[in-house]
């Protein structure tokens, strides 16, 4: 069975409500919808408090980013009984409080919806070709990757 899979990379913001509704409206076979919204924070990712950031600038690898997300979406669909799946990732300049990324998963069972959403977020963090630069009052700097994100992604590896 083919299920609705939507993957979008875009500079503009997205509407969480519309995306959730798009996966569930008019259907009576969906028991669970999980949404994850990643939002730009004003505190530095690597900072010990102190300096606040003015914006994140997200660079991506056009072409590969879509393909890489599509491969993981396909894997999620093959691993969990999903009825629908949406991934939206923004690029460009994003200010604190604004959305960065959205994953919505729909399933007849809650575990599948939760696990697929976590799987996709862990993979987006570590495998999707996006790079964050933080702009602050003292200039701008690239965000370092985190070991804890690799650890989170590793738990989904098939043995």
């Amino acid at each position, binding site marked *: 069975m083919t299920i609705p899979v939507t993957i979008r990379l875009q500079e503009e913001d997205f509407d969480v409500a519309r995306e959730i509704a798009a996966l569930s409206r008019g259907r009576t076979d969906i028991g669970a919808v999980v949404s994850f919204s990643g939002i730009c924070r004003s505190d530095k990712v690597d900072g010990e408090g102190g300096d606040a950031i003015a914006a994140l600038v997200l660079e991506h690898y056009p072409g590969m980013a879509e393909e890489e997300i599509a491969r993981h979406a396909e894997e999620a669909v093959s691993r969990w009984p999903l009825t629908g799946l949406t991934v939206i990732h923004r690029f460009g300049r994003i200010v604190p409080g604004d959305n960065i990324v959205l994953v919505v998963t729909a399933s007849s069972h809650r575990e599948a919806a939760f696990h697929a959403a976590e799987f996709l977020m862990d993979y987006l*963090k570590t495998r999707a*070709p*996006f790079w964050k630069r933080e702009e602050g009052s003292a200039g701008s700097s690239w965000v370092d990757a985190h070991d804890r994100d690799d650890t989170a992604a590793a738990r989904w590896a098939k043995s």
Partner: protein
Amino acid sequence: MKVLYFAWVRERVGKAEEALDPPEAVATVADLIAWLSQRGDEYAHAFEKPKVIRAAIDRIHVKQDTAIAGAREIAFFPPMTGG
């Protein structure tokens, strides 16, 4: 082949992409990194810690021991920080 650079690799190299034709002895991604590092200070700076650099061949993540023969597009970038 087309070679692409992203994030601070791009900033250090000073360009986003270029067409390159490395000699035949450059067989793997690691060889290509070593060869690029000889091309000037900006490359030496970008690739000063080769183990940190990630690579993709034709838009698929690869390890540095992967052969580059037949590649149309090779990209170098730091560890990803999306999501």
